[in-house]
């Protein structure tokens, strides 16, 4: 890795626009993710957070702007090629394969990138170290897992492709607070131990901003605020919009 590669951000999104038919979901978004960072993207429903994540992954395609990953322009590259560049995604709503076993679900993550048997074994060890629960459930069908276990499986599946950038869409969605905390702890561990770069899209702004090094706030397809996690948590408009109002108990 050259000196310039170390200083440029791992992912740079510049002026990206994306739309579903005539409805514009992203209206010129700029974000940057540095190596080894956890970046949180927060915002209300329909702000375009998930769309941004999916646009980075190549579907829907960006209509304008550029997406640069590791110094390479990946705008318009198809999703399966982006996966080979070791960007992994855990989609919204977990979306594990319900009739396939936990082992098969994890294998699906490894299939996307050609990896050797040793790498696959190492990947499994890493996932099991992070989520010991998955090891206990290895032969069970994905659909029989609890919500928290399914989320662990979704993250584990994404990790099996040995990503350099992991993108998580609402990992705490529909989970009990205690389980959500476990998931967030696991993400922190991944980041601290392996230096994994993480982009996390969340509605749970409090958790996400505490976890993240930096955060972006998205409103109606535009980034309106950015700063370190701590800074954003102190902003009165953030507190009003995403914390006090949306806090449960």
């Amino acid at each position, binding site marked *: 890795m050259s000196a310039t590669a170390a200083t440029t951000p791992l992912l740079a999104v510049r002026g990206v626009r994306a739309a579903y038919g005539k409805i514009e979901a992203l209206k010129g978004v700029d974000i940057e993710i540095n190596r080894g960072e956890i970046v949180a993207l927060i915002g209300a429903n329909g702000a375009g957070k998930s769309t941004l994540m999916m646009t980075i992954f190549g579907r829907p395609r960006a209509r304008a702007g550029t997406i640069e990953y590791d110094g390479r322009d990946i705008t318009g590259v198809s999703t*399966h090629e982006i996966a080979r560049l070791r960007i992994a995604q855990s989609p919204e709503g977990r979306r594990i394969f319900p009739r396939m076993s936990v*082992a098969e679900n994890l294998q*699906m993550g490894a299939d996307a990138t050609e990896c050797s048997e040793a790498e696959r074994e190492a990947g499994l060890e890493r996932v099991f170290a992070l989520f010991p629960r998955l090891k206990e459930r290895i032969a069970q069908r994905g659909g029989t897992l609890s919500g928290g276990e399914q989320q662990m499986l979704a993250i584990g599946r994404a990790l099996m492709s040995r990503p350099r950038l992991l993108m998580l869409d609402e990992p705490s969605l529909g989970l009990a607070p205690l389980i959500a905390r476990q998931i967030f702890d696991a993400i922190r561990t991944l980041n601290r131990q392996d230096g994994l770069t993480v982009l996390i899209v969340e509605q749970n702004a409090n958790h996400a901003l505490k976890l993240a090094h930096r955060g972006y706030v998205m409103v109606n397809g535009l980034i309106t605020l950015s700063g370190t996690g701590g800074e954003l948590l102190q902003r009165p408009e953030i507190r009003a919009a995403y914390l006090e109002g949306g806090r449960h108990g």
Partner: protein
Amino acid sequence: MSATSARPSHAAQPSGSAFILKKALISAAVALVLFSLMIGIRTEAGPQGGLIYWTRFGDLAALVGTVFGGSIIIELLRQWWGPVDKEHIVPKPVQAAMSFAGRWLAPALLVFAFLVPVIFYNQRYILDLSILVLTYVMLGWGLNVVVGLAGLLDLGYVAFYAVGAYSYALLATNFGLSFWVCLPLAGILAAFWGVLLGFPVLRLRGDYLAIVTLAFGEIIRLVIINWQSLTGGPNGVSGIPRPTLFGIPLDNSDDGLAAKLGIDFSPTHRIVFLFYLILAMALLTNWVTIRLRRLPIGRAWEALREDEVACRALGINVTTTKLTAFATGAMFGGFAGAFFATRQGFISPESFTFQESALVLAIVVLGGMGSQLGVALAALTMIGGFELFRGFDQYRMLVFGIAMVLLMIWRPRGLIGHRAPTVFLERNQAISSDLVKEGHG
């Protein structure tokens, strides 16, 4: 059982003899009202043009009594069985017996299949029927790749069967190519048509996909009917050469197999040869499918059936995954088609109607999507069962309808709805088989 001895009922569902009697009485009352005019009183125009009527209270009483008794029986059955969606605990010995049967059923069937020509050598009818069943087993296994594994509902599978059959028929009659040269060609051509169908339907799922594939099947059939100069139109293609054993014909001639082996010629030789041919082709289909399921492409097919969005999120190339599924399924359909042509010696568009597609699809669905053994059993039941009920011509559709409804109530995922995982971790294997059974359902 007396009316006063009503047992304490289940939480939500009332039971007990009082409830059963009440329900039976209500049913009987409804039956009495309905049938009193329909059955009880009969009217007819008399010889003078006036209306005469007579009563049939005996018949009426019999019917109402039947309804009363039937209602009690149904209610007792229902209470014995419990709610339909409830998990039933199967007793341990039964479970053990079933798992034993499950383990030995497939090998036993295979051995039996190999022995069929030996056992039934003199029964031409059974040999012919076995060949028919095996053809459908092969078609079922081929369609299973598309529908069962990849989850792409294909209602036009017969198109590939037709492409395979006409490929062999036309290549053989026009260019004199042998069956063994044409067989791979038929497969390749069918696979090519599979890809051709695959492209326009890449974005479609579920109902829309079903409609387009249905139309595709009809288009192929209509083209065959109307392209008279090539396909002979409705008259079909006749005089299709019979298959040879690596160039040795199975006929009465001096070069025939019987003459070469120095045994007496019998037409059964050819039938037995055809039987083993289709058996080998079906087993090849099965073997390839089982192997593919353990490779990334096979896993991708199954993942595609489960969740297309998740597949994209994992970076699976959905386009190639779908196209390979269509091509693989179509190729096996093409092989089966070539076999059909050589077996019949004559083909016409009438053999490739939508009904064939529906039949093969029913086999796959009844067998349990994705289960190889289930598809084989379903083919045996559907095709063999159809023959079995040939005597009751008028009732066989009724019997099949009822059987299908019952099957879908009790085994909504098909005869063998259980799916065997393809990825194992060596050290966990002991736990895995236990847990897999737990999830059986």
